[in-house]
């Protein structure tokens, strides 16, 4: 349909900024919980929007479950699920999913392993049948074990030349005490990956992949009864041990400040990370900490981004975030700045951390953060995969079922006083760790002059240089 409109007067009219109308109500999708007799849990959110659904299978088999020295085993096991079953090799499995038009992915993060499928709903049964096979009859063929190990080794090699990933990796390594699982990459390091075997994978699978430790989340245009029936058909007679939840030390490596420069001699920019060990996801100060972080570095209009990017032009972007985990993940400020202003950018970041701890934020800053998080809430859940991810958060962190119903109220209830308390309690300028991946010769002297803390220089593999 096409038409001409007769709008438009001859005079160029500048109009004042309009007021907003009343928001329309929104409710996070309703969901049902149920379980099969073998202990397998189901969370089902029917969403009658488009003929599509996301299935997420969650297992208590994240990287924190890696046995000592076997770093990378949880990830390798999760990825091997898609590399062949006793009735078909990896090519056949992937091919069967993709011929349904379904996208599939399997991986392990710190807390859980997961398999995710998004499919048109007329292929829901086929997808479930394939998933059942993948979960229950993985082949773990030697050839595929070796291939995925080699792919991980190639990835680790690539990381040495990739400043962003390298900075994140090194930050964790310097942050946590060496006995913490968090001090090592979730996918494992070169030594640990080389030591992984089919036997280790099989033992890990038998111990941790079982209906008792598993939750299936389905979000989309589905009937809960139908989903329950499908799950019972393909996984109802699955049996296994009851896994014990894994855990890791989350203690810091040191209680005083330190600078760690990872030397890349011809880097045109410094990747900068400044932070410390943060909070566990289930923390009573969660909301005030989230708002505090939003004002400090979580939004485009946050203090750190406006300072480093818009006032100084030091960077394309700067942000801060809590890396939420069951245990204490990192809290970090991340940015990339030109070599010659690395120290100046670090000084500004530290000043902003000090400032938000010493004086209350303005009411304007508070309402920017709260009205953003309140207003953006429905926009976060437009797709079935986003809704499945939100339900994953509930399951992984064992949050109450009404979490998303009270979320916006709890955001709006945070005060400037709460933010100040959160900053005082949860930001620790005295234990900040600074990691710079960049040209050590160009940045070292001026960073030393900041007297931030003891400074050491390392090569790209983390060996003292």
């Amino acid at each position: 349909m096409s038409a001409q409109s007769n709008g438009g007067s001859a005079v160029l009219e500048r109009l004042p900024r309009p007021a907003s109308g009343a928001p329309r109500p929104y409710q996070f999708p309703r969901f049902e919980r149920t379980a099969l007799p073998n202990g397998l849990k189901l969370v089902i959110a029917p969403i009658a929007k488009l003929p599509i659904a996301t299935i997420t299978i969650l297992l208590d088999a994240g990287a924190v479950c890696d046995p000592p020295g076997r770093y990378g085993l949880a990830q390798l096991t999760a990825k091997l699920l898609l590399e062949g079953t006793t009735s078909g090799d990896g090519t056949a499995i992937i091919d069967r999913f993709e011929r349904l038009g379904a996208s599939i992915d399997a991986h392990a993060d710190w807390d859980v392993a997961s398999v995710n499928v998004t499919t048109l709903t007329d292929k829901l049964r086929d997808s479930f049948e394939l998933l059942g096979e993948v979960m229950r009859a993985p082949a773990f063929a030697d050839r595929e074990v070796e291939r995925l190990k080699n792919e991980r080794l190639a990835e680790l090699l690539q990381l040495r030349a990739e400043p962003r990933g390298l900075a994140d990796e090194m930050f964790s390594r310097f942050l946590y005490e060496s006995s913490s699982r968090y001090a090592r990459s979730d996918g494992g390091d070169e030594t640990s990956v080389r030591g992984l075997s089919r036997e280790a994978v099989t033992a890990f699978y038998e111990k941790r992949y079982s209906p008792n430790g598993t939750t299936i989340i389905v979000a989309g245009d589905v009937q809960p009864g139908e989903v329950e029936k499908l799950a019972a058909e393909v996984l109802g007679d699955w049996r296994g041990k009851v896994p014990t939840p894994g855990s890791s030390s989350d203690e810091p490596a040191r209680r005083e400040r330190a600078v760690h420069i990872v030397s890349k001699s011809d880097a045109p920019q410094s990747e900068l990370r400044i932070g410390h060990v943060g909070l566990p996801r289930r923390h009573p100060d969660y909301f005030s900490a989230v708002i505090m972080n939003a004002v400090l570095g979580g939004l485009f209009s946050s203090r750190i981004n406006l300072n480093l990017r818009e006032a100084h032009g030091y960077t394309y972007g700067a942000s801060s975030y809590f890396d939420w985990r069951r245990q204490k993940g990192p809290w970090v400020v991340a940015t990339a700045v030109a070599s010659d202003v690395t120290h100046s950018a670090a000084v500004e970041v530290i000043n902003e951390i000090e400032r938000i701890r010493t004086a209350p934020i303005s009411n304007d800053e508070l309402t920017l953060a709260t009205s953003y998080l309140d207003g953006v809430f429905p926009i976060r859940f437009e797709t079935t995969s986003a809704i499945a991810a939100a339900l994953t958060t509930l399951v992984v962190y064992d949050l109450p079922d009404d979490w998303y119903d009270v979320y916006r109220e709890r955001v709006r209830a945070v005060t400037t006083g709460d933010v100040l308390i959160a900053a005082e309690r949860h930001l620790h300028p005295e234990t900040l760790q600074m990691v710079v991946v960049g040209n050590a010769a160009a940045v070292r002297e001026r960073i030393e002059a900041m007297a931030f803390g003891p400074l050491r220089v390392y090569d790209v593999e983390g060996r003292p240089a």
Partner: protein
Amino acid sequence: MRIPIETFRLTNGLFVTFSEDHTAPIVAVNLWYHVGSANERDGRTGFAHLFEHMLFQGSADVGANEHFELIQRAGGTLNGSTWLDRTNYFETVPSNQLELVLWLEANRMGWLLPAMTQQKLDTQRDVVKNERRWSVDNQPYGTWWERLPALAFPEEHPFHHSLIGSMADLDAASLEDIKHFFATYYTPDNAVLSIAGDFDSVEARALITKYFGSIPPGRGKPPLADMTLPATFGGWKRVVVEDDVMLPRLFLAFRAPVFGSKQYYASSVCSAILGLRKGSRLYRRLVRDRQVAAEAQAFTYDLTKGADLFVIDVTARPSLAPEALEREVADEVDLLIRDGVTEEEVARAVALVQTEFVAAMQSAGDRAERLSLFATYFKNPELVNEQVEQYERVTVADVNAFARERLGEENRASLLFVPRHENAEEKTPSDEIAAGVGSVSQT
């Protein structure tokens, strides 16, 4: 599935498209200006993108960065992006905030220049230089996205030069350039405004007329240099680049039929068969079976003028020598030309496209973006609803004909990244290839 679409045009030329969907109280606004790096004059590479940054520096009634603040305070998400032939600005907000977004976009379309200052330009120039360092210079293989168009398009072609721009050209950009670019390209008759989601089309139409109706049309933009190109490169072009990387990576490009043409869909299906996801040929053969590659994918640029680019992108395993990488990839392409594809392979590609379309249509922002795309390039947003059918019509014979006509040796361009050798004494076979660094040769 089809989405509802409504279209009209204001008397000043602003092209408007709507798609209503009331399942959630969300609305997306998406504004495309039909200008990109292709429109830059000599000595001003990167200007279209720098200009995009300046659009967030305020307008007559909006302060610097206030656009961001107002949208985020309203509970919305936003951004802008620059491409070879278009620049877009987009917001997704709670549906009661639609009028604010229209006011903001109209204010900068009508009254940008009063807010422009030398200081803002200087700061954004620094921000963009840092963006260049971050996304291109300090990233392994980061220069590929300026080297590949430079290799694939002749020097005088509008798609040849760098989109992010050179540091020297960024330095040369002036306030005078801003005024000129704004007057020439940021006019309602060179723009498409799309709205998708929870809104009332009668009200929205009145609001658009109210805020945009009085902005005068432009005086026309200068024509681009001739974009037409021969169907093939007429040979095999090769460039080898030494970079701070650990593994060789090959970009093998082919000239392909432009986006929107009938033949394009065969090209797109062929790229999915070769390199979309783990069930694709390159992944199965090179990553899984032969284990010579760490990663493998293929895609099309989706350009609508001159020629599209069909690109294969494969990263070697540490054990594979750079020169062997090109051979491994070329063998797979030759095999596809010789033996053709199967019904099953075409069906797999089409099934993935079908799911991807429904998944994308869940998001108001994606809907609005696609409306703008088809309205800008083809003046016909209804094409959004015809894409899946176009894919469903592609046959094995179409794909095989495309492969024979376009994937042969007379139509190839290799951009090969190889690890830099710190020590020139250590001669390895790869150094021989690397001897021709930065040069373009035709064989």
